[in-house]
């Protein structure tokens, strides 16, 4: 699977964009940390080239634009809208719908828009519980002191949800934030006129281990579970074999396995591979398979249970970026 190295090649025409015009681009953030907006810089100088070949019609982080400007645009007049961030508030949802109406293609950019991201871990609790915990009993979001009703803060939705829960999503550029090779892959396709049929995720179908240079041994197994701050991992061996919970086996590749290369286990930001499905259950079955001692049999079950019990924060480990997508919806 190759990703374009240069972003400037234009070989084929495709419906998006028209050949004669620069594609009209919108970038918007919903419940986001801001990292996604910064991530474009990751591709380096090439971003200048990219920006020169698109027409930015709306990008609050970069150019001054109001919601009313967006509302004024005719439907379908934006070619591609990149939305990053989780859908947490009513306003997030409204803006997403507005962009959907004005755009030919919607791109969920980054893990939050893709799967709910880190903020969706809040979905472990209901909206009321969160208010109670953070602001105390009886709290209601209202206008700030002295302001009138119009300035009221937007209310929270019942849950923090991925973009696809409120609008149809055509493309995904996954990651927290999206890594440079995947951003390049996306813009390469867009500017090269080679956009795949939607829906499409700009990342590999195979799991991360495929790209990872770490050695997996024949009789690989886990005899203890440790957290990254507790060990200095051996530079050659697969992190799982060293007891670090690496989500590589269930996570899409495409990032060149940057984290495992640096000794940090994969936390799953590119989302599960299409066949892995729910990353928690897939990872749990992988772990249950790997946790094992030299001998097997019933007498080892308590020992094996003991190993798995050392797994701190299973929810945050297995669904760090995807709880919004995979939690069981009531």
């Amino acid at each position: 699977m190759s990703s374009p190295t240069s972003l400037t090649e234009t070989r084929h025409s495709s419906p998006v964009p028209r050949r004669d015009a620069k594609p009209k681009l919108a970038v918007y953030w919903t419940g986001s940390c801001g990292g996604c907006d910064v991530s474009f810089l990751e591709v380096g100088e090439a971003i200048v080239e990219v920006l020169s070949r698109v027409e930015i019609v709306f990008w609050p982080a970069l150019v001054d634009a109001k919601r009313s400007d967006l509302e004024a645009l005719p439907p379908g007049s934006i070619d591609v809208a990149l939305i990053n961030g989780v859908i947490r508030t009513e306003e997030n949802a409204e803006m997403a719908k507005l962009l959907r109406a004005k755009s030919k293609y919607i791109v969920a950019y980054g893990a939050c828009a893709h799967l709910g991201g880190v903020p969706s871990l809040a979905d472990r609790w209901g909206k009321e519980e969160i208010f109670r915990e953070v602001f105390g009993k009886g709290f209601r979001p209202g206008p700030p002191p002295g302001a009138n009703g119009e300035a009221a803060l937007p209310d929270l939705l019942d849950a923090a949800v991925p973009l696809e829960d409120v609008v149809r999503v055509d493309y995904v550029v996954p990651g927290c934030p999206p890594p440079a090779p995947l951003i390049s892959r996306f813009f390469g396709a867009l500017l090269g006129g080679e956009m795949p049929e939607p829906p499409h995720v700009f990342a590999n179908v195979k799991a991360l281990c495929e790209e990872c240079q770490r050695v997996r041994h024949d009789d690989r197994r886990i005899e203890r579970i440790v957290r990254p701050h507790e060990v200095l991992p051996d530079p050659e061996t697969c992190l799982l074999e060293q007891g670090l919970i690496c989500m590589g086996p269930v996570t899409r590749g495409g990032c060149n396995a940057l984290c495992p290369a640096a000794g940090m286990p994969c936390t799953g930001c590119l989302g599960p591979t299409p066949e892995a499905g729910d990353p928690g259950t897939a990872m749990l079955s992988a772990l249950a398979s790997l946790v094992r001692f030299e001998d097997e049999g019933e007498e080892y079950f308590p020992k094996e249970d003991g190993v798995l019990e050392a797994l701190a924060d299973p929810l945050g480990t297995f669904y760090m970026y995807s709880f919004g997508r995979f939690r069981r919806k009531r």
Partner: protein
Amino acid sequence: MSKRSDARNLSTRHPSRVTRRGQRIGVFVCHCGHNIAGVVDVKRVAEELSRYPGVVYATDYEYMCSDPGQDLIKRAIREHRLSGVVVAACSPSMHETTFRRAAEEAGLNPYLVECANIREHCSWVHNPGLEATEKAVRITRTMVEKVKGNMPLEPVEVSHADKCLVVGGGIAGIQAALDVAEAGYEVILAERSPTIGGHMAQLSETFPTLDCSQCILTPKMVEVERHPNIRLLVNAEVEEISGFIGNYRVRIRKRPAYVDPDLCNLCGECEKVCPVRVPNEFDRGLLERGAIYIPFPQAVPSTYTLDEETCLGIKPLICGKCAEVCEPGAIDFDMSEEVIEEEVGAIILATGYDLYETKALPEYSPEDPDVIDPLQFERLLSATGPTRGEIRRPSDGKVPKTVVFIKCAGSRDPELHKPYCSAICCMYTAKHALLYKHAVPDGRAIVFYIDIRAPGKGYEEFIHRVMEEDRVLYIRGKVAKVFREGDKLIVWGVDTLSGQRVEVEADLVVLAMAVVPPEGVEELARTLRLSCLDENGFLKEAHPKLRPLETLAGGIFIAGAAQGPKDIPQAVTQGSGAAAKAISLLSAPVLTHSPEVAEVDEELCSGCRVCAPLCPYGAITVEEVAQVNELLCEGCGTCVAACPSGALSLRNLDDAQVERMVEAALAELEGAREAVEVKGG
């Protein structure tokens, strides 16, 4: 990006070979006499199934597996142009083959036939009534759903090597090697020691017929040496076994003997001048040998051997006296180790046994020269032994007038020693007592025993003869202690029948030590990369009753005491049995295997290697991507469940099929929908 992976970029499931269109399934419900029909309303099952989507024909019959039952299926396949068959009857492990073969005869691919188990899974475990019938319907529907997703398959075929490796040259290995060789296949017989023969060569006479052990063994040893189809490797150990049934690659390391067997004329001059003296293994230390020696005169191959471990030194040469006196110049200090690599189709493990060490029983004063193990006693009895068959005790060479035999020494003692019965000690102790009484008619033979186990042909009679005709004293009870007092060994025991303490002044004590696995068997097991040892360390059979000569690794068989304590007739029987198994494998033109195995979708496999170590049959190897060896895979599904990438699936039992089966099983049950909620990404 390839087209296909593009299409899968967001897929949530294998693009499964979804249900084949235009299904015409036939369902055949068996009464199994009263076995099923007595509990399940079989007519109703057939009737309900006849209304099930995809089913075009459903009927019931008394005995589906009978000839008329099979004919019924065949006729229906032709008349109703069936595209799949479900037989609702007993477990597929019983008659799946029967029904598949019948279908094949009627022109239907056998892998489109499935058994719905409404006997073991239903009628045998439920009371008669509506619920049992309802469950039988569900089970049958489930299999209809499976058949709908089945693809016609062809058995896997693989060629194989036509040699056989036999490991261990005791009587079991000898018999196996001779039988396979006689059938026309090449045999490599690898024996660790310098000669074949095993423990049987050490025995004097054999129970219950008392024929001379060496007299019946040595002709077979010679036959091995002469047989054109047998390549005998002594001083040889198997270092590595890789591959799979029919196609094993073995590497054997053969230590140099430093003596050319073709030149050695057995003059023995070398041993005479050798300054080294160490205990002789063959005589269990009752005699000594040089560093250059022959284990016993009839050893095969017939040659002296230089034991590098005890020689004063070869590299560099320290002494070299033997070579100086060797007339034919047979001794060659430059001989080097050989590594032999071979492709073999079958392997027979016949590595035999050892005796539990007497020093494990300190209460019996094992360090005393007159407290001996039973093989030492065999050597004392043997005409070729250290005393030329006269019974003289090791300490002072006197003829012992009272000999005490202690049975179950280290056996049947789960707390401290071996939990199992060593099976042969009752018989050889009786033999020992009898042979002693024949040699020393005025001597006393006293046997301490827990009970007597003599189930073989003529064995019980033999014991009676020893007790009655030869007036050996059998005392039921355990011996607490053996200790020396001057010239005598004092034996303290309890007669559990009379409840009285017994004290015997003995001249010689023979401990009938437990039979244990030979040293090195763990390493051998490790090279096989299979759990093939039982809890006591003996080689484990695939099934204790139905597959006693096989291991879980296809094409690897076991014979003789390697599998557990046994006597010569049993060891020989197993040798021949394992040979027959090997021959039937080697004589097959190709090996066939069920195609219902796991397969890897290479476009999904990331090479994460979660699967490989899990496979109980060692069927998976991973390079860039995983590969399943179709001949080894037993279709257990372990790897499929484990693969985090969904790259593995079982042929004719893929995820989509399983989901439809679960749905069919739970249809219309409360809460069932939720239970079937499946993955999706």
